[in-house]
């Protein structure tokens, strides 16, 4: 219990400081976990309570993601979304996988690292667009839809990675069955759900919490991945009143997710057996490969490499989903590598997102200057 209280108190201070400085909090939650955990003399230790809180954090994160994926929201510029999504997926998965495999990780480990390497932090990307007042830039739309595309890919990853050695046909049949039940419930119980959500008492929040937990434990009982099912629950509920569900699930998500980040940090061990060369290489490549995919997207979608730079700046940060993949499927070594990558990319990312305007202006005036000096007199 003390561990949890120490963790919450540290996070409260970190949240205050990072909000004041308007920098992302996620890397600092993880660092706090690292410093106060194994590396810092074991002030924080994982126990049953923190384990439970962390699981809740992950489940609510995914439920929230599902709520945001509204089926009727189809982008008006579907080809652009698809093009940028496919560039982003291919470039980063290939570089991530090749790098991890060449650096000595096993095939499965490399696949997990590549997935974590590919998926940018939706939370940090969107916050950076809002806080740095970039919403009007045309690149912002590209970034926002890229995040939706990545979320959809993540769902496929979760299905494939958790299938494991099961009979795939039975596995997917079970998933479809649970999905069917969820949609039927949301569809036929829509009025009932809305009447519950409209109440002023404790019922809406109690219902939201119970629905998410029931779905998670029910899918564990059936042997289908609970991660996918809570996303599906979110998508199904999004057809009723997503804003109300967001409002009622937010307190759970906010508290549990912070605990999730800190205790993920606690499991990370940079001191023993961590290969700094591997960690450094993956982290640097993670920044570089988003530059390649960003530039390609900029050139293909906006006809401008400078736009690519803007897309890059806002998608460098890896975060919550990379950590989720590490926690769900990663070995300790994979977890440590992903932790380092998240910390490095989110700090570099927040810096680049803040100063990308200056960078762009600098490049433009530099090229103009070059053009002027080249002109024959």
């Amino acid at each position, binding site marked *: 219990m003390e561990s949890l209280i120490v963790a919450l108190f540290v996070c409260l201070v970190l949240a205050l400081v990072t909000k004041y400085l308007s920098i992302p909090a996620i890397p600092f939650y993880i660092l706090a976990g690292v410093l106060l955990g194994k590396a810092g003399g074991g002030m924080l230790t994982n126990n049953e309570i923190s384990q439970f809180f962390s699981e809740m954090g992950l489940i609510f994160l995914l439920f929230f993601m599902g709520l945001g994926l509204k089926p009727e929201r189809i982008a008006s510029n579907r080809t652009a979304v698809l093009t940028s999504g496919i560039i982003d997926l291919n470039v980063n998965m290939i570089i991530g996988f090749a790098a991890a495999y060449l650096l000595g990780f096993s095939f499965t480990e490399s696949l997990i690292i590549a997935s974590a390497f590919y998926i940018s932090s939706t939370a940090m990307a969107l916050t950076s667009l809002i806080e740095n*007042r970039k919403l009007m*830039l045309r690149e912002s739309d590209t970034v926002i839809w890229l995040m939706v595309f990545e979320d959809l890919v993540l769902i496929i990853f979760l299905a494939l990675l958790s299938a494991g050695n099961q009979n795939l046909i039975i596995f997917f049949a079970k998933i479809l069955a649970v999905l069917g039940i969820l949609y039927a419930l949301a569809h036929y119980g829509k009025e009932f759900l809305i009447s519950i959500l409209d109440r002023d008492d404790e019922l809406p929040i109690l219902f939201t919490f119970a629905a998410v937990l029931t779905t998670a434990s029910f899918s564990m009982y059936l042997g289908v991945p609970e991660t996918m099912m809570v996303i599906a629950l979110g998508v199904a509920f999004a057809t009723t009143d997503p804003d109300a569900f967001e409002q009622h699930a937010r307190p759970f998500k906010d508290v549990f997710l912070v605990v999730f980040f800190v205790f993920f940090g606690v499991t990370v061990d940079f001191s023993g057996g961590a290969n700094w060369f591997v960690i450094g290489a993956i982290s640097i490549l993670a920044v570089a490969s988003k530059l390649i995919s960003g530039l390609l997207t900029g050139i293909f979608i906006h006809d401008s490499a400078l736009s690519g730079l803007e897309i890059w700046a806002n998608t460098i940060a890896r975060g919550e989903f990379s950590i989720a993949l590490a926690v769900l499927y990663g070995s300790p070594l994979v977890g440590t590598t992903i932790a380092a990558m998240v910390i490095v990319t989110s700090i570099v990312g927040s810096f680049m997102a803040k100063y990308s305007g200056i960078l762009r202006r600098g490049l433009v005036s530099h090229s103009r200057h070059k053009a002027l000096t080249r002109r024959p007199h």
Partner: protein
Amino acid sequence: MSAMALRSLNLPGVGTKYEFETDKGDTVAIFFTKTGAVQMYTLQKGCRTPSAAEMSPVEARRLGNILTGAIIEADQESVEIAFSALADLRITIHTFFVTAAVVGKTIEDLQIRAKTGATVIAVCRHDRNIINPPPTFVFEEGDAALVIGESDQIKKFEREIMVN
């Protein structure tokens, strides 16, 4: 009047975007973000970098009042609503901070409706709102009154009741 092309767009995870281009070619974009903040961007024709302002919902409403042409003095504000379906009925709602002329008097004493035609529909006192104050309601120092009526009636109210 040319139809202004106002685009509204739902941005997943961010909020709602409204954008339109003015006749002169400048672009204005408003974002209602999920965090509650409202961001307004303006992009001058021929420029590449927009300028932005972030507002709280209250500030955004204030800006809206200014843009609709309502009178805003130091701490008084007024909104005019036109109902085009009702023979262009124009109703003005105006806030007044009570003056010494009315402090200690009731709405009945002042004969507000008989003299001006305007109606006091709410009074804000110490951050609490009293909706539909009765005729026996006594004004106190520091009260802010919300008065509704046609713009002539509001002017009359200001001339005859607030100044005495």
